[in-house]
């Protein structure tokens, strides 16, 4: 794994958490949505926080797909779970949400899980034969049949 790829994984977590926090902040301007006032959701699309949240979630999806193009799903999913931790920190800092001992225990478990998976290989499957002349990633070791760490 190169530094660039670790940065992509970090970007996945940051974009996901910041996007969700922006959406949550934006929806606070509107209150609870019910069947009586569902049309508010349309006007929510003009709210700067909601627009920012949507842009960040598009960036999240782009980086998530990029990560899946060179790493296993069972590597990317736990490795980007740091987004839950960032979301809790941002919720406490900017939305003044309460972080309970149960939350801290959850944060600790997620951090351990991320550490466990990130210390292993990012890919365990062979690259699909390229149909467009594209070379396989350099760190993929075909002799071992698994991703090699650099």
């Amino acid at each position: 794994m190169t530094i660039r790829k670790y940065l992509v994984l970090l970007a996945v977590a940051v974009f996901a958490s910041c996007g969700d926090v922006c959406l949550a902040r934006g929806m606070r301007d509107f209150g609870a949505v019910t069947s009586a006032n569902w049309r508010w959701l349309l006007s929510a699309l003009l709210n700067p926080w909601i627009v920012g949240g949507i842009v960040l979630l598009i960036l999240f999806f782009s980086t998530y797909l990029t990560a899946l193009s060179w790493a296993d799903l069972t590597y990317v999913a736990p490795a980007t779970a740091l987004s839950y931790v960032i979301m809790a920190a941002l919720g406490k800092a900017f939305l003044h949400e309460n972080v309970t001992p149960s939350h801290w225990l959850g944060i600790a478990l997620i951090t351990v899980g991320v550490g466990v998976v990130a210390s292993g290989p990012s890919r365990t499957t062979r690259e699909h034969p390229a149909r467009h002349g594209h070379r396989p990633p350099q760190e993929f070791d075909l002799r071992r049949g698994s991703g090699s760490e650099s």
Partner: protein
Amino acid sequence: MSHGYVWAGIGAIVVSATAGDVLQSHAMKRLGDLGALRRERGLAYVVRRVASSPSFLLGLLFMAMAFFSLLVTLSWGEVSVVGPAAASLTFIGNAAAARIFLKEQVDGRRWLAACFVAGGVAFLAR
């Protein structure tokens, strides 16, 4: 609404979210490193390739199903149950489905990581 409906809804979320993730992963694995592809052929080519992938489009459909299943299930049960249960079980579902359908080598390390993260999400969302 009874517990049966709520857990059926959670099951629908987990199955559709897992199917979406597996199909997206399958599509991206077939395309190869998107970063390298973008440097070689340009962003427009990458977008065109991704958007024309059947697995990607089917994955999007399942992700939309997961989203609407979540909305419906949230109207039946409490968010403090539905949210963490669905998110945690999706991590476990992903590990099992990736092993079966994507032939990923899900060793003890990855199962342990998935369980730690699933447990952490459950605590965090309480």
